[in-house]
Structure formats: C-alpha cells, structure tokens
C-alpha cells in the first residue's frame, strides 16, 4: 500500500485488519456477518475470500457466546479480533466484558491475560432510532481492566488496531458510524502517536475543546467557525478513552483557561462529565470560566432526521456554547 494514497475510514480499518492477519497467524476475525455478508458496515469486505473461513469466522447471533469465546481463545494463545456489530448489541455481551475480560488478570493474581480486541460501531446519525443509536463509550471507559479507543482520523483507523493487538490486555475499539465514508491521505505508521495519547488536532489559546470519535469533526468545524469570529480554540482528540491522557488535557486547559467538552453520549453521566470533573479537580485555579459540555439530549434517539439532529451535538451548539464560555 502506498502511504500517500487516500483511504476511507472503512478501508483504513480493513487494511489494518488485513495487515494484522498477514503478519500474525494467530490473529483472526470473528463476529456476526464479518464473512459472507462482508461486514455490517463493509469493513471486512473481501477478507473472507483472502483468508478463508477458518480465519474470518461468521458467528451465529449470540453476542455473549462469541465474545466469551473470544476471551477464551485469547487466553488459549490466539489473538482474536471480535467484531460486535454495534455498541447497541454489546449490551448482550457486557457480562463477558466486565466480569470476565476485565477481571481475569487481576483476579487470578496476574496469571492470566486476555489479549483480545473487540471492535464495534457506535453512535447515531443514520436515522436508526432508539435501539440502534447508542453512544455508550463512557460505560466501558469506567471499567478497570479494559482499555478503550476511539479512532477518529483515517490514520488512527489505519494504525490503532495494530497497537491494540500488541497490547496484552483487552482493548475495545469504537468506530463511529458516520466516519466510515470519510476519506483522507494516510500518513506513515511512525507518525501515529501511541494509542494512549491524546492529540492536539488544532492549536489555540482561548478555549480548549475536547472531543473524540464521531464528534471530533463537528468540533473541528466549530473551531473553524470560531476562528472566523476571532476565537482561537484548541481542539483535543482524546483517542483513548481509557486510560485518559490527562496530561495533554490539563496542559491545554492551563494554557487556555477554558473548557468545553463535546460528547455524543447522554449528558448525565457522560464521559464529558468525567472530563469536566477532572479538570475542575486538577485545573481549578487555572479556569476562568465554568467547564461546560455539549452532549446529547436525554432522550432515546428518535428516527426522523430533524429530531435526530435536535437530539445530538451539532456544530452550532458547540460554537454558541464556546462563545458563551469565552465571553462570560
């Protein structure tokens, strides 16, 4: 692959899987419709033909069963990539993730490890309504024993998987459904920061905007709009939701003295709340205004476009809230 070529997020993810499978025979992909269907979001399209049924494994509809099987296979020396089609269905596998994957190393006194990668699509934007539009990354970020990534850029889609596979512990990767069609040039692998580092996507001095995943580009767009209004916003892409790179976060807030967090999760108990709390705890004296957040409305996401838009963070909310913070 030529590193300057343009790839979609989907293709970048596929390249990442393909590369991992080529390099390590113990890597395999397992999940609902990853094979014959080509992946619910077409990420794994063509991989069945390339690697065969023994390594691209279509599973029955049984999320708890195959996620648990992934845990066992990881303990047995394999390097499974388990695709749980979307975060909405991952609720059925939560017991396996929280009670098994996250606990086994500690609970066994360090004897066991679960080097498992679980990928899932997340977020709203495709008018899929209440049961198919969750953003529950915050729940997973709450659990010690697992790591949680949210690649937003094409580069991260391309390179974070490899880092997750090297990691000896369970890593969850959240892929926002609205990102799959984004296209960008892919930089060299060496230019990709470690998976647990937040990245300043835009430098600024008046306010820190923190985001991740699907909300990142809305936040960047808002930052651009703010620039036009002479507000210099620094944009941080968290990338890793657990662990959190608080250093990058705190340095930025200590510089800008203002914070706005953008997160598609419901407001109460959102990851955005955690970021605000951390900053309030650690950068209190540096803050010139209350830390704020733009989140989803506290409502099951409805089907019609205008209501879906009304329910979730949009560029104008970010801009308006940022202005309020800066001008207060």
């Amino acid at each position: 692959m030529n590193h300057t070529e343009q790839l979609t997020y989907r293709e970048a993810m596929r390249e990442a899987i393909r590369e991992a499978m080529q390099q390590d025979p113990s890597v395999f992909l397992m999940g609902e419709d990853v094979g014959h269907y080509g992946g619910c979001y077409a990420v794994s399209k063509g991989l069945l033909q390339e690697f065969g049924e023994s390594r691209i494994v279509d599973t029955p509809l049984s999320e708890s069963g195959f996620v648990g099987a992934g845990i066992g296979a990881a303990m047995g020396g394999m390097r499974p990539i388990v695709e749980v089609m979307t975060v909405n269905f991952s609720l059925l596998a939560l017991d396996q993730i929280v009670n098994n994957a996250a606990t086994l190393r500690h609970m066994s006194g360090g004897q066991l490890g679960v080097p498992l990668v679980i990928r899932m699509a997340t977020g709203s934007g495709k008018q899929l309504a209440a049961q198919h539009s969750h953003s529950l990354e915050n729940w997973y970020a709450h659990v010690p024993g697992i790591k949680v990534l949210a690649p937003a850029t094409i580069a991260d889609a391309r390179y974070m998987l490899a880092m997750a596979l090297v990691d000896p512990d369970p890593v969850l990767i959240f892929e926002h459904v609205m990102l799959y069609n984004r296209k960008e040039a892919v930089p060299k692998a060496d230019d990709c920061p470690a998976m647990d580092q937040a990245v300043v996507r835009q430098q600024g001095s008046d306010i820190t905007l923190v985001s991740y995943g699907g909300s990142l580009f809305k936040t960047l767009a808002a930052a651009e709009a703010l620039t036009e209004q002479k507000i210099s916003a620094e944009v941080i892409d968290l990338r890793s939701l657990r662990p959190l790179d608080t250093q990058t976060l705190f340095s930025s807030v200590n510089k800008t003295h203002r914070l706005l967090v953008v997160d598609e999760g419901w407001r109460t108990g959102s990851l955005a709340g955690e970021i605000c709390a951390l900053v309030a705890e650690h950068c209190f004296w540096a803050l010139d205004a209350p830390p704020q957040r733009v989140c989803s409305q506290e409502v099951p996401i409805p089907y019609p476009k205008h209501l879906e838009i009304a329910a979730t963070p949009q560029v104008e909310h970010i801009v308006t809230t940022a202005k309020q913070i800066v001008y207060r």
Partner: protein
Amino acid sequence: MTAANTKPHINKTHLHFLLKQMVRIRRFEEKCAELYMQEKIRGFLHLYIGEEAVAVGVMKVLQEDDAVVATYREHGHALAKGLSMDEVMAEMFGKVTGSSRGRGGSMHIFDASKRFYGGNAIVAGALPMAVGLALADKMQNRNRVTVCFFGEGAAAEGEFHESLNLAKLWSLPVLFVCENNLYAMGTALSISESEQHIFKKAQSYGLAAVEVDGMNVVDVEAAAQKCCTAIRQGEGPHLIECHTYRFRGHSMFDTQLYRSPEEVSTWQQKGPILQLKQWLEHNGKLDEVEWQQIEVEVQQEIEQAVAFAEQSEFEPASELCRDVYLESA
C-alpha cells in the same frame, strides 16, 4: 398434517381475503422501496417481500385482543394486524401522524389500541416481552394469545432459550412463530445453527412445535389455528417454524454477496402470492377482473397512504423530549 383434517374451511371469500392481505403487504413494501430511493424513507428498511404468507396466515386466526410482538421486519405484521396503512406509511416517513408519532420509523411500529407491540430491533429482544404479556394475561385470567414473530437467526440468542423455558415452565399462552428465511443478514442457517430444525429445539423445553410451508398461506393458517385453539384451551405455549424466504436483501444496504440470484429465483417461483393466485385461477376461483380489482383497491389504499404521509407534519423539535417519562407529556 394432512389437508383433510386440519385445514380451515376454505371458501373463495376467505382465500380472496388472504390473497388481498398479501398483496397489500407486497405492494406497500414495493412502494416503500421506491420511496427509500427517493429518500422519503430513511434508516434501516427491512422488507418482508416473499414472507407475506406467514403474517397473513397467522393473523387470520387471531382475535382482536390477541397481542402481536414482532421484529424490525414488521410492516407486514402491522398491516395484517389491522393497523391503518396511513399510519404505518406516515411512520415510515417519520411524520407525527405515524403510528409511533414518527419516532420509530420502519423498525418501531407500535399500536397499543391494536395490541401491536412493535417493531423491536434487537434480535430476540422481544421474546421475553411476549412471555411477560402472556404472563399478565394468565395472572389476570384473560383468555388471550400473544403471538411472537422472530427470525431463525434469533433462535441462536440466549433470550430464545430463556423465553421458551419460561413460557413452558409457567404454561403461558404464547405462540412463537419462527420465520425461517434461511438467512440472518448474510449468515446462512447452515453456518449458524448446529441443529438446523428450529422446531426441534422446542423439544428441549417440552414445547409443542410444528414446521410448516411458510410460502403456503393456507398451511400457515391451519397450523396457527391448531396452535391457537390449543393455547386457548390452556395447553400452554406452542411454536411454529415457517419455512420461507425473503426475496429482497436483508435491508436496503444489502449487496447480497452471500447467495446466488438462482437461489432467489427458485424461491420466487414458490412465492406465496404467486402460489395462491395460480391455485385460485387453476380452480376457477379467481378471474382477471377479480385480480385487477384487488390490485386497484390496494393501489388506491397505498396512494392514499402516501398522500396522507406526505401531507402530514413532522413532530416539532420542541417536542423532542416529551414521553421520555409520563410526566413530561
């Protein structure tokens, strides 16, 4: 099961009714596919085309206060259960006049007054709900049936197992109807179930179960009739496995890499509408005029529904947060 002793008394009116119901569903969904292309309908749209005999056959034997619990592929069930096509179409459009105020769309059609409980988009997630509805009936001494439709793919989920056990353990009035269309999205039954006869699974719960040609509406009706009668007589839950096939992709996004056009067309030959129509014609019970009349009536109903949906309003965004809790109404 022989025709002689189990098939319901078949007369022309009866068969015409079944035929027309299937045609209503078929044409409605063909229209939906068109409207999807025009971006009037969005989100996931799962068409039932090819499987109409199942919903129509089962619904024929239900009484008004029997409950229906279905999946995201539920337009057919909604129409067959008696929901107005206007409201169902408006729901597809996301309009406030839709059966769920437009908030659910294709996957979440509800009508409490018709005892139509969705429209459920988590595979197998509605089976426990059906058990609970039946439990409430039993606890309140009401002699009603709750019918729960689901795909063969759902049978692999743990909730299938838990629900069948609960239903039988407590001897609840539930009819489980498995719509075995051979695929769960792109995953063939043969690679998802070690035992591919879903009705045989019912045995592990001691449940009475049968399989039936799901392309033959009369067979489906007969089986449903038998089961519902037994259920109403207090014989507890039953399961029917209907062998059927979806002629379209899983949803509008499906490129159908997992099956051949030949396979699809073989099944199309056995299509439930085609089959019944040919049988009626062959037996002199349907002439071209009658057929055209059905088509025309259905066409009118659909045009009316589209017009209704088009003319309806969207729910104002200011009402986004109502109905999260009752108080906020």
